[in-house]
């Protein structure tokens, strides 16, 4: 089956309450798209619309170019893995993995011998071959997770839907599984993956592109680098990585005014006098003199092993700087000067930051 998912203005409402608002999004064949957003933003709902478990109030869903909006789930040929794994408790691992193959009927009916080889193949791929005869209750969380993935992959879906598949695992196992998923995707280059998460590290690590959702709406969509370097709005800036968001006024001579001082930054396309928000990543802020100076008082200092995090109050605004571990860190209440390069700052449309 060919991959690729397209949401065409998909709206989902529960009892008149819109939880997905006219979503337009395309996942190319072979692409990993992360759906990133806070709790309740509609990520799972979008996924369920693809799988066929919720019916959009309006809009269409396409899989591999085919309109599947009116198809029942069992005719969509999708692999799906959810947070709680949902393995069948009374079936052994191999029976769980074979379930989808045995369910195929008509033209796609799989002969017995092939079921056996494909089950073995899926278990091999997820490193679970040694556990084929176990029951799910005899496996650890990470192993159950692998079985769930093997079960979804066994039917060779064109589209794989993953709904927070790692959230039940501890931090260590999570980063292992993340690497594992990346490897799986390299082995299955044609499969489109829609990966729901509220963990930006997972999204940044795994995804070719990230779709950022907030309050039922798509806020931004782009490569991790684009979203990180040049976020489209304040929400995206603060949700993908950390961000210092400062309210500024665009000056007349190319640059912006923050508090009392001028700051040099690209202002292309913004009229002088307009209000805007300046976005600077904490790890791109330096201590000491340089271009674009910000002077203020240290309100807090945290040592984080390889870095020091400085909280500095500048003109009533809190600015965060993540600095490589300092030999002689400033103390609470010290006056310090911070700087950042004009290239490292982005100007965003004014939002809630303006008081």
């Amino acid at each position: 089956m060919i991959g690729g998912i397209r949401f065409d203005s998909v709206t989902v409402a529960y009892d008149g309450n819109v939880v997905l608002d006219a979503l337009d999004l395309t996942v190319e064949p072979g692409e990993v798209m992360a759906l990133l957003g806070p709790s309740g933003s509609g990520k799972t709902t979008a996924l369920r619309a693809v799988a066929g478990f919720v019916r959009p109030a309006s809009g269409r869903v396409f899989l591999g170019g085919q309109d599947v909006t009116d198809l029942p789930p069992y005719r969509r040929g999708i692999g799906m893995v959810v947070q709680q794994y949902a393995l069948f408790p009374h079936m052994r691992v191999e029976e769980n993995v074979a379930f989808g193959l045995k369910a195929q009927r008509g033209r796609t009916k799989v002969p017995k011998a092939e079921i056996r080889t494909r089950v073995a193949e899926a278990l091999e791929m997820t490193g679970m071959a040694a556990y084929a005869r176990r029951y799910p209750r005899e496996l650890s969380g990470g192993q159950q997770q692998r079985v769930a993935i093997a079960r979804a992959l066994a039917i060779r879906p064109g589209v794989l839907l993953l709904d927070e598949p790692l959230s039940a695992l501890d931090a260590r196992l999570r980063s292992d599984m993340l690497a594992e998923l990346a490897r799986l995707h390299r082995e299955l280059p044609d499969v489109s993956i829609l990966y729901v998460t509220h963990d930006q590290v997972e999204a940044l690590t795994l995804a070719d592109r990230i779709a950022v959702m907030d309050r039922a709406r798509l806020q931004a969509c782009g490569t991790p680098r684009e979203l990180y370097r040049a976020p489209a709005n304040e929400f995206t800036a603060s949700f993908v990585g950390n961000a210092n968001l400062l309210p500024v006024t665009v000056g007349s001579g190319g640059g912006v005014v923050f508090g009392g001082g001028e700051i040099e930054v690209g202002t292309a396309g913004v009229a002088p006098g307009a209000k805007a928000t300046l976005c600077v990543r904490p790890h791109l802020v330096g201590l000491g003199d340089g271009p674009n100076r910000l002077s203020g008082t240290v309100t807090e200092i945290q040592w984080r092993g390889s870095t020091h995090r400085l909280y500095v109050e500048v003109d009533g605004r809190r600015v965060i700087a993540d600095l490589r571990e300092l030999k002689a860190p400033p103390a609470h209440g010290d006056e310090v000067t911070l700087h950042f390069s004009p290239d490292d700052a982005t100007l965003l449309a004014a939002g809630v930051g303006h008081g």
Partner: protein
Amino acid sequence: MAEVVRRLRVRRGWSRPRGGSRTSNTASRPWLAAVPPVALLAVLFLYPLALVVQQSLQPDTGGTSFQPYADVFASDAFREALWTTVWLAAGSTVGCLVLGFVLALVIAFVPFPGARAVARFIDVFLSFPTFLITLALLFVYGTVGMANGLWTDLTGAADGPFQFLTTPWGVLLAEITYFTPFVVRPLLAAFSQLDTAQLEAAGSLGARPVRIVRRVILPEALPALAAGGSLVLVLCLNEFGIVLFTGAKGVTTLPMLVHSKAILESDYPGACVVAVVNVLISVGLYGLYRVVSRRARA
């Protein structure tokens, strides 16, 4: 029970500190805690049962012998009643399991308005006396019931077409109607434990609804089916009210036979023999169920 006894004892010892020595005395003999429940059982249940067994061994001619057993086992009436009882109970159980499973599936998984009300009603239904449902069936399908009345009014015929209520099939229908909720109840409890994510996973893997029911829901429901089914089977074996109230003349089950022997023929030893057989079948089936369910779990 033992826990309650222990607590009571502790409280008594507390209010009368000098009773301390006695408390330690009983604590060294824990089997004493078993005395009250066993005594209660003995008075309420075992003693009457023993009386029945004793009576069954004392023929009217005097003395103690197995003669009543030989007489009863040799009679056609008994063999027929035994067969009727077993097939009615087995048939009703199968009917209840099938109907109950379908009903529970619909109530639990097909969203329709009022599903909760139906589930609530089933709880109430369990508390109805057995003759009530039989009466209801009589009103609908009885010789002078609504269905036949409608038929005779419309066609002018002397009799309606629905005469099955006084046959074994009428008893079967009444028992299935009455006992199905006893299967639905545990099934609904089991279904509420079922993870809907499992059903969705099965669906997205390409399984149609029928396959999901057979391969995912049914295996999870087996313990509930076994529990409900064995309960219904034992209840049906011992059912008296339904058989009596349908007025099915030819349908004699073991409990009916006990009744007719004891009340109508004043053959007390014979009645007791039938009662003992009835109890043995119930206990035997229960034991079988325990063995099978333990095997199934292992």
